């Protein structure tokens, strides 16, 4: 190991004219969805070429809850093996103490990013992580099927229900027995919190816990939103949807077995792959709005960031890596190859990006309606609060208590937790 390190160091100092600092061996952890890791690997090769530092990827499961548990354990134990963590947008308040402050290192580049995203990664004036890409969900729809039945892209959830039901029934009568109307992320996990927050918010039902800490979830609009969602299960969505995460819903969609899907932009490039049954037959739109007072389209703000561990022995090189992965050049490649949404505003006007992913132009609109999950007001209790929320929603969807009953209980549980 030591000699290896030395050798790499020697080689780089010889080859690189601009006196490279001692090459470091870094490790980065990252979850995987679709082809995310393969892309990260190719980025790291460029990084190694530029700086001489070598980087090993430690792959993690795709479920964000699984990753969080493991990272938390490593960080609590002061693990020095991992230098850079790929962090979910909601983790910053919970893990802020364990990452170094990047304010100074990123001083020149923070202005390029969306201010709301930088804000989400800033805890008590400390920049916890550099945004790598952002995420906001979209409604994927089958252009061929909508055209065949002369339907518009639905603007509200009840419209979506009606359109999906009609197409599904007609197609099934014609022999496509595996076709479903709508698939989303319904498993009891963080993804359901994202989905359900969108329903509630789009019906004008607030954002579970408001920025000032008020628990707002128990209201008639939220009840209406969950009742609408519960009516999908078994009609336009398979019952198994209650166990789907991103990849399972993409599986159903990509086999051509769904009219609509709610998913993150990563599914766009994959659905257009050569092995996809829906290649060239779909498009994306903002998610539908609710109905009633205060109804508007809504999307949960997601996204991944790069943070440097406080326990890393190579903090300088690790900071370089985090900055590299969040840089405009890297984000541009990511947008073109992975269709991940850049957190850098200027890239939405970039000709190359728009050519590779024309749908990104519409995302500025989606971003305007994006809603953050209540990780800031809930702070270290966010995960438990989110789990209470998704359990209440999952119970409602599986017919275990009515929406009104479950939300009333949820309110009490959240009060117990946060007060």
């Amino acid at each position, binding site marked *: 190991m030591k000699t290896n390190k030395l050798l790499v160091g020697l080689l780089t100092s010889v080859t690189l004219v601009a006196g490279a600092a001692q090459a470091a061996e870094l490790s980065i952890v990252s979850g995987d969805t679709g082809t995310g890791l393969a892309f990260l690997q190719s980025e790291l090769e460029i990084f190694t070429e530029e700086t001489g530092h070598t980087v090993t990827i430690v792959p993690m499961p795709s479920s964000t*809850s699984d990753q*969080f*548990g*493991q990272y*938390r*354990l490593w960080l*609590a134990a002061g693990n020095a093996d991992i230098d850079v963590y790929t962090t979910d947008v909601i983790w910053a308040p*919970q893990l802020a*103490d*364990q990452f170094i402050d990047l304010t100074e290192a990123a001083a020149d580049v923070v202005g390029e990013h969306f201010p709301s995203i930088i804000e989400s990664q800033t805890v008590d004036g400390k920049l916890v992580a550099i945004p790598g890409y952002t995420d906001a969900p979209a409604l994927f729809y089958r252009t061929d099927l909508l055209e065949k039945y002369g339907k518009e892209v639905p603007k509200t959830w009840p419209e979506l229900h009606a359109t999906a039901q009609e197409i599904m029934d007609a197609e099934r009568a014609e022999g496509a027995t*595996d076709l479903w109307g709508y698939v989303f992320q*319904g*498993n*009891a*996990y963080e993804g359901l919190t994202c989905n359900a927050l969108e329903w509630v918010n789009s019906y004008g039902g607030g954002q579970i816990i408001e920025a000032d800490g008020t628990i707002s979830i128990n209201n008639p609009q939220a009840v209406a939103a969950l009742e609408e969602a519960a009516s999908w299960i078994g009609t336009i969505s*398979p*019952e*198994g*949807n*209650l*166990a789907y995460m991103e990849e*399972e819903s993409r*599986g*159903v969609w990509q*086999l051509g*077995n769904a009219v609509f899907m709610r998913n993150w932009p990563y599914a766009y490039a994959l659905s257009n792959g050569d092995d996809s049954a829906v290649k060239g037959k779909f498009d994306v739109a903002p998610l539908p709005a609710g109905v009633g007072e205060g109804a508007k389209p809504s999307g949960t703000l997601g996204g991944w960031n790069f943070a440097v561990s406080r326990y890393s022995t190579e903090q300088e090189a690790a900071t370089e890596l985090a900055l590299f992965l969040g840089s405009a050049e890297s984000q541009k490649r990511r947008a073109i190859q992975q269709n991940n949404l850049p957190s850098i505003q200027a890239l939405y006007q970039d000709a190359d990006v728009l050519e590779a992913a024309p749908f990104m132009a519409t995302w500025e609109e989606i971003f305007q309606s994006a809603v953050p999950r209540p990780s800031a007001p809930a702070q*270290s*209790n966010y*995960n*438990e609060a989110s*789990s209470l929320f*998704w*359990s209440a929603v*999952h*119970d409602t969807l*599986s017919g*275990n208590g009515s929406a009104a009953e479950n939300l009333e209980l949820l309110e009490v549980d959240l009060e117990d937790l946060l007060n």
Partner: protein
Amino acid sequence: MTTEALRSPAIAQRRGRSELMQQRARAARWFLLPMMIALAVVAGWPLARSIYFSFTDVKLNNLYGAEWVGFANYLQIRTLESGRTIYRGVLADPDWWNAVWNTVRFAFWSVVWETIFGMIVALVLNAEFRGRGIVRAAILIPWAIPTIVSAKMWSWMLNDQFGILNDLGVRLGLLGAPVAWTASPDTAMMAVLVVDIWKTTPFMALLILAGLQMIPKDIYEAADIDGVHPIKQFFRITLPLVRPALMVAIIFRVLDALRIFDLIYVLTPNSAATKTMSVLAQENLFQFDNFAEGSTQSTLLFLLIALFTIVYIWLGKVNFDGGAR
């Protein structure tokens, strides 16, 4: 005089034997020492620390700044200003009792079925037939696959849209429509049980087979000559004689089943219908900011398993030396 003369050799003999025994015991202690140290470091210390944490208000981000809170994590009785009394703590938490009930239910049914199937498999493997060695090896495959791999494999097989089980069921006309085995609360526990039984039956079969092979063949020959019916032979000869091995096998399995984690974590991680004590403790320890509560649950889990083991050994008169008392 005479009595003394008679007694002294006996005493000397006895004393000599005990000296030898003492010497052997001393040597044994030295031989045990490395093992004891290893156990204390890898099992004793973490256990003690976990129990200690359960009496504090520790947080995962601050493991060394914990303060002693007594039994508050277990149970605290608070009287509100209105005069109403409320109970807080793990022992008053319905989620905990739900997890206990799930765990007990899981352990009971999985062990019952594994014992029945294990016995059948062992009886078949105990018979003489060609290729017995290969079959014996093949049957161990489910047990040899790491749980996380087999759980993931089964979760795809049980998937409602592209799972092979639903496909087969629908093609054969057994199912009207694909069933979401792991998603629906009614079938989630059954799905987990099926996978666990599939996985651990070979282990049970192997332990029972070892017991079966210790039964002398001549007993059966004698029974045959006396014209005892094979079914009567099973209940009168096989079952009583295999009982010691069976009891040990069952306790291994029950201890394993009571701390079930991996299978459920992969198949149905957040379903209230299958959440067991270990899954709940892990969630509180690492997902939520409740390290102390998670430690309390781990401690209770430990106590429950310990209690069960003591009662089982006592009631079942299990003898770990290999024979019934």
